[in-house]
């Protein structure tokens, strides 16, 4: 299953994603998509090292899925975390063009 490694930046708490170079990005689009267990393990190891270096806190792996042709976090919690509050589209990554291209549903309508 595709995945990505995420954390919160220590200095301001902003949600960040681990990119292919092992750096942290605020932009979901720049996060490295991890296609297999080996890539996941390596990314988590890199993330743990940056945690020890006090750049981020609480790093972990999230599952991704393709929705409407776009890659996005599978769990609603992670989709909201990667986007911003669903009742405030003017806040968070969704307001900065850094959110997944498919956002969690704003309303609860089907």
């Amino acid at each position, binding site marked *: 299953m595709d995945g990505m490694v995420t954390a919160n930046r220590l200095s301001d708490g902003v*949600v960040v994603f681990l990119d292919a170079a092992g750096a942290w990005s605020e932009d979901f689009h720049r996060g490295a998509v991890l296609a297999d267990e080996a890539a996941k393990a390596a990314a988590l190891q890199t993330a743990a090292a940056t945690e020890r*270096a*006090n750049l981020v806190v609480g790093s972990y792996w999230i599952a991704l899925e393709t929705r409407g042709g776009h890659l996005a976090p599978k769990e609603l919690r992670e989709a*909201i975390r990667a986007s911003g509050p669903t009742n405030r589209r003017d806040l*968070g990554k969704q307001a900065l063009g850094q959110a997944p291209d498919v956002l969690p549903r704003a309303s609860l309508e*089907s």
Partner: protein
Amino acid sequence: MYRYDEFDAAFVAARVDQFRDQVARRLAGEITEDEFRPHRLMNGLYLQLHAYMLRVAIPYGALNSAQMRKLADISRAYDRGYGHFTTRQNIQYNWPALKDTPDILAELASVSMHAIQTSGNCIRNVTSDQFAGAIAGEVADPRPYAEILRQWSSQHPEFSFLPRKFKIAVNGAPHDRAAIRVHDIGLQVVRNERGELGFEVYVGGGLGRTPIIAKKVRDFLPERDLLNYCEAVLRVYNLEGRRDNKYKARIKILLHEKGLEALRAAVEAEFAALDREALALPAAEIARIAGFFAPPELPQRPAESARVTQRRGRDARFDAFLRTNVVAHKQPGYVIVTASLKPIGGAPGDASADQMDAVADLAESYSSDEIRVSHEQNLILPHVALDDLPAVYDRLAAMELATANVGAISDIIACPGLDYCALATARSIPVAQRLSQHFGEGARAGDIGPLKIKISGCINACGHHHVGHIGILGLERSGVETYQITLGGSADEKASVGQLTGPGFGAEDIVDAVDIVVEAYRSLRASKEETFLETYRRVGMAPFKEALYERNAGSDI
């Protein structure tokens, strides 16, 4: 308002300095997150979904205009221009940076505010009636007692590492607006047969995953023994409360496992063994603290206002506002005004910086500089002259703070839920928004009458769903948001825990499900005067359940 003395100011300033040092050491990598976390939590700083969250204490929900303006300024300078008033009468900022928090705390300290003990396993911010000191018929103003408890509990060395958090609420009027029966200790101010002031003491109430209505452990506790008795309760809890399982660590579980009689006996034994003189409250000290809460000097005014009567006659919205958001003050010619933080379709409890400033301005001009925050997430101007009501209303309306819905179906309590909270399992705010839009503030809402909907986005119950007339609990089932409904809860002097209707409803169906419950009530009520809660208590769950599950094809059962 209580004014900090030198000790208070020095204590808060010292804490700001300590936290500044702790943050600097954390950012420099000198301490780990595991080492730092307890420090930040003791200063109200959480890490949530999108960012850090700072919870600022508003002791017993009381603010002056300078404090409210400071809250607005902080939201502009360090956050995103708004704040969230909570069911604990606090305010939460959703986007502060860790590196800025020492400056934010310093700003708060400049107006005698802080974020101390808004988290952690300690005695939390003491809460009270938002109408305290203004409402008619009060036995006594609860705020002096709340302030005394605040001073006693701040950095109390024995009670800084309790098995779990501990919440105290004080109510001074016959009607309980402070939800004291769902607190760890609930204090109801009463007079005994000799006319002396004291308290009925309730212990072991709480919501969360195990909702329990507090039990009365004392019919009358003399005023002077307030701290002695609380100390005895806390000491028993601190020694006997479970530390092996955080879900069983609250005093309500101790009460449940030990039984009322045994808990009462243990508390009374501890109370008897205390050196009662050390913590006894001298009458002079109570009077000194009460002096800070002396009623404002309100000029005599006629009980009626021609200006208000005329406006009511020609302005239906003003008239509606008066009926729902305005209650009589203890002094004739004055009223208590509730500014609704529940605009139709809005996020409950959210206030923009401009709205906070507007309320501060109104308080300064029209309410003796006083503002209150209610646990139902609204803002109150407690001392408004009736004659000034049109001016106050117009300003509130211009700031979208005049929705005529206090106590009505759209005056919904909701926690931040999965839109912000790291603990949440489902969203709360969008459910509140859709329910609010669905029922609105029109004729139908008026016909439905008083009805408290309370929504929590997880089992921790920050949205008080257990004590909602209609409670909604958001859960996650197989990756999908699911909402359970409870009926018949209440947080007042006739407190009760709501009963689960049955299986939950999907996000698409929850509004329809609530509508079915409301329509069932309208068809079941004995008269238009019988409220939802009265009807529920008269007819019980069965007809509501039948309406929900036997006629609702939309449910996911």
